[in-house]
């Protein structure tokens, strides 16, 4: 890392810290001795409660256990959505018949947000885990499919031609040209899908769950515990941030040819 880069990094971190401090300061001032303070806790109790609930259960589970519940649901829904999205997207992008058949149905389903499936899912699957997986799946797979489809469809024809001329067969063209050319698109889809999956799990848990971070905030609402709501929201924000960062890191590793500069 050059000196300039170190300096840039340090200043980014300093500014980030400054902005967080500013937020806390405004929060503290806004709730000190005002009517807002009666329905909104101060920052310090929220952080105390946050740290405390890492070991002391809220409801039946600690904060960490709630987070694990939510993450596991996201994992199942997101991964199944990603698998279906990638396979179907590539099939649609490369095989005109499949495109012609699937696209009209998909275009109809796509604008329906994942959460709109909640009532139907509950009637179909009850209030168990399957319902939550289904909602997350419906919330996430469309983004993966759309991006994969765009990537697979728009592979540079000349590249395919060049490979064909060098003697590549259909399988080799698929493995060595179509797939790698689609990877950046797939990643863009996965990134969006992961964040919509994370939103969908919260919605699902707010409606039908006794555990998970979505349950934490509705539980807080039902008992009038604003601190618990804020603890839940803080956890949601942090986990979302971590997921997005991990995803970006994975993309950087796998698509280094796209990003690596001089």
């Amino acid at each position, binding site marked *: 890392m050059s000196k300039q880069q170190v300096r840039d990094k340090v200043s980014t971190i300093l500014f980030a810290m400054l902005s967080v401090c500013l937020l806390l300061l405004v929060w503290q001032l806004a709730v000190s001795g005002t009517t807002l303070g009666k329905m909104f806790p101060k920052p310090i109790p929220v952080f105390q409660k946050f740290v405390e609930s890492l070991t002391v259960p809220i409801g039946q589970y600690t904060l960490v256990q709630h987070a694990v519940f939510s993450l596991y649901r996201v994992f199942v829904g997101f991964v199944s959505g990603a698998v279906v999205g990638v396979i179907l997207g590539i099939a649609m992008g490369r095989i005109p018949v499949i495109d012609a058949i699937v696209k009209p149905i998909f275009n109809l389903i796509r604008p329906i947000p994942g959460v709109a499936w909640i009532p139907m899912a509950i009637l179909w699957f009850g209030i168990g885990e399957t319902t939550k997986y289904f909602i997350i799946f419906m919330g996430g797979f469309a983004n993966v499919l759309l991006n994969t489809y765009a990537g697979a469809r728009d592979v*540079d024809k*000349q*590249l395919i*031609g*060049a*490979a*064909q*001329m*060098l*003697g*590549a*067969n259909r399988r*080799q063209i698929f493995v*060595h*040209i179509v797939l*790698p*050319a689609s*990877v950046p698109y797939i990643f863009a889809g996965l990134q969006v899908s992961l964040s919509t999956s994370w939103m969908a799990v919260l919605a699902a848990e707010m409606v039908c769950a006794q555990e998970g971070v979505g349950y934490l905030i509705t539980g807080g609402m039902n008992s009038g515990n604003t601190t618990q709501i804020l603890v839940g929201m803080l956890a949601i924000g942090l986990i979302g941030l971590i997921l997005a960062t991990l995803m970006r890191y994975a993309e950087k590793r796998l*698509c280094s*040819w*796209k990003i*690596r*500069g*001089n």
Partner: protein
Amino acid sequence: MGQAQASAQTKITQPEAILNVDHLTKKFGDLLVLNDISFDVKKGEFLCIVGPTGCGKTTFLNSLTRLYKADDGKILFEGEEIDPQKHDLAYIFQEYSTMEWLNVEENIRFGLKVKGYPKELQNERVEKVIKMVGLDAYRKYYPRQLSASMLQRVVIARGFAVEPKLLLMDEPYGQLDLQLKYKLEDELLNLWQETGTTVIFITHNIEEAVYLSDRILVLTNKPTKVKKEMINNLPRPRKISSDDFINLRNEVTELIKWW
């Protein structure tokens, strides 16, 4: 009269032909692009194809290699229907068709790899051509990090590496600087003489065509036909300032004037 002359030229037969193009016709919708083109290419010949801008030179090459499906006609390579999976071909496009996710070395290796050549042979060929195009120091670079002329050198090296029996080039040097163009023209001639490969080279640069070729096919405007065949047996190495060279260049230039 001109019409009669042109149709008399439609079949140009060569002894010991490696490639026979027979009544090649290509339409895009109602637009007739290639109008019944027939000619042969001799084994080991260096054929240049010139023609006015937009006369369908690229369509011609794409149909020849079956990247486009021709509407009519037969293309035989060594007596069989041409097939890139069976015959050793290389096609160097006008645009840089590098694979972005492969570095320079991996790009050059691509054709050797899909053909399943043994590792040692792959290495040997890659080393040879990577030095030839002067990209030895850039072998681990990705296309994104290279300039336009370097990208084209990668593509040229990738084509050369498979030591094709038929090398098709579509204005490959059009976007390179002059010095590099001269160097790569000579490299191409060396390679051609060394390997005895057959080359079809499309260009709009008449000087280039006269410098490189054994024979020049002059195409007409759309719908494209072969207007004239010019035998070019100037002694090699050629001097672009010699009288014979200039005469032939002027003669070809006269033929492709459309104004």
